[in-house]
């Protein structure tokens, strides 16, 4: 049975003004703030546990047959007559994957949740780029909707803008399928920032677990519209699910609204609890909060850059 399509488009998805000059200024400001927050760190590097061909000395270890002669510490051999290898910390770029939900449900609200998610995604991407990390943007809904391959350097931010402007909105949310596909496509582990409303009837657990179990570091950002939490409804209504087109007839009463608010809170609480229990950074925001405030909050609490 073909589900009837919702009659009304709730808001215009006009992204021409999404990444304007104002936005760029804010990004630069955020970048400066981020430098302050993370001062004392050597730029452009993540120290990994992996020891290898870096610059910075880490340790010595015994020479075994087959090791590269070049790393033998001859000075030490002269002093203590033992063959030891110099070990260096291998420097590695961090891969930041920004997964933006662009399902139909993100096209609700004022401003659109999708626009908000894109702005936050672009801001986080910019911070990453400026830190010489590799940033990839991957939009998804019921499937991955293309991808912007990992890029590096501040200059690439315009490519991100361009890419985000052309992302197509639509489809249902299927976190589990998308995130599983994502981990299979991307062998380089890294930070996986998921920006979504997490309105998936199948739940969010499988999706986030797919990231965790494949050694990605999930970073959960839940975006919702104020009116979703406190809908100003009354009277007899036919509720249309904007993704599935499913119809539900309700007569809204004050008590029903209260009940709905409670359920919404419970739903968000479940996600929050899940993330906290697994020490996954979790942020929840409604679109009324300016995106730069959110990013600053993320800096303050930590989790995005370490």
């Amino acid at each position: 049975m073909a589900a009837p399509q919702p009659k009304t488009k709730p808001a215009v998805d006009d992204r021409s003004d999404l990444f304007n000059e104002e936005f760029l200024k804010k990004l630069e400001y955020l970048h400066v703030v981020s430098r302050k927050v993370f001062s004392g760190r050597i730029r452009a590097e993540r120290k990994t546990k992996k020891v290898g061909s870096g610059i910075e000395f880490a340790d010595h270890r015994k020479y075994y047959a087959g090791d590269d002669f070049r790393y033998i510490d001859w000075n030490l051999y002269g002093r203590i007559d033992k063959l030891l290898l110099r070990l260096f910390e291998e420097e590695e770029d961090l891969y930041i994957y920004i997964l933006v939900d662009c399902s139909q449900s993100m096209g609700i609200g004022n401003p659109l949740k999708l626009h908000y998610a894109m702005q936050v995604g672009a801001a986080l991407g910019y911070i990453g780029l400026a830190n010489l990390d590799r940033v990839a943007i991957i939009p998804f809904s019921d499937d991955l909707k293309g991808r912007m391959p990992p890029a590096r350097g501040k200059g690439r931010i315009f490519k991100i803008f361009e890419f985000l402007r052309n992302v197509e909105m639509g489809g249902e949310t299927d976190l589990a399928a998308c995130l599983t596909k994502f981990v299979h496509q991307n062998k380089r582990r890294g930070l996986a920032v998921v920006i979504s409303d997490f309105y998936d009837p199948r739940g969010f657990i499988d999706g986030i677990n797919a990231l965790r179990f494949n050694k990605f570091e999930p970073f959960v950002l839940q975006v919702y519209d104020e009116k979703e939490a406190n809908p100003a409804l009354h009277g007899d209504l036919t509720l249309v699910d904007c993704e599935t087109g499913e119809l539900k007839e309700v007569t809204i009463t004050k008590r029903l609204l209260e009940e709905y608010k409670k359920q919404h809170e419970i739903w968000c609480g479940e996600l929050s609890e899940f993330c906290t229990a697994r020490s996954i950074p979790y942020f929840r925001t409604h679109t009324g909060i300016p995106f730069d405030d959110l990013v600053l909050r993320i800096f303050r609490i930590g989790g995005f850059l370490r």
Partner: protein
Amino acid sequence: MLALSLNPPIASGTLATIAGVLGALAVVAYILKMRRRRFEVPFSSLWHRVLKEKESTSLWRHLRRILSLLLQLLIIALLMFAVLNPKLGSQPKDAKNVVIIIDASASMKTADATPDEKKNPPPKTHEIKRILQAMSTGSRSVTIGKRKYEWPRKEYAEDEAKRVKAAQKLLADMASDNKDKARQAMMAARTVVQAAVNSGNSRIEAAKQKAIELLDEMGGADKALILKMDGQSTPMGRFSDDKLKLKKQVARITASDTPADLHRALSAAVDALRERDNPMIVIVGDGAYPSEVLRLASWDKSKPIVVDTSELTVAEVRSILKKITRGQYFGDQAEAKAALAALDAKKPNAV
């Protein structure tokens, strides 16, 4: 006992059709209105969760949903009921058919209330002007000295307006510089004022008043015909249960200059009542109707009840009307009073 009778003015089949159409319209309008406002939600699962818990109250919700429809249908049903013209009071089979004969012969012009002209002399010349002035303002009485002059209200606003206008014109003419004209107006005014003042006390006014009071006593399903009796008998309308209409017919009656022809009036009444249930004839007049003539009012096998109300008060007439049964008649006053006394003494309906 409270009894209800229905008197549909149109065929009940037609009425049922109208009711059906109206009901169908209401239902269609309701269904059209039921098309709800659509509202897009991002995540209906949340609503499912909420509504699952509300299942228990859904019965009431459904009821409330059709409550407005039920109300509309109820209103239509009440409207239809009103069209059926329900009447409180006697059942149609108990309903009486009454001919009210109002005596409008020359003798009814007499003013009984002022028999002594020495006690109540006609208004003097200087009083006439003041009475006329009061008349021209539309009032119905004026007190000059110790005496109060009264004249009855004309029944229709039109007539009343005419009288006021005439009074104003007479006043204007009396104030005219032309002496002849003023004198003529004065004479005319005297006649008008005397007639007006006398008419307030005339027998015909009293009879009309009594007839109106009797009409007020009618049951909901009772029907009456007003018959004016003078030299000839004139029905003022048709059998009707509309009291307002009947009262207007009564108000239109004026006394004529011919003697009353009781015989003719009775046969007209009998003709009108033939084949009708619970026939009754009520005579309102100044009495002196020979009982042998009254007894003539009959047809084939049955006889109408004839009540001569001449010397009975309205309360007495009401009491008789309540107690008398079919087939009884009261030819003259003595008979009626005796019947009434007998009724009071014995149990009701035993006469």
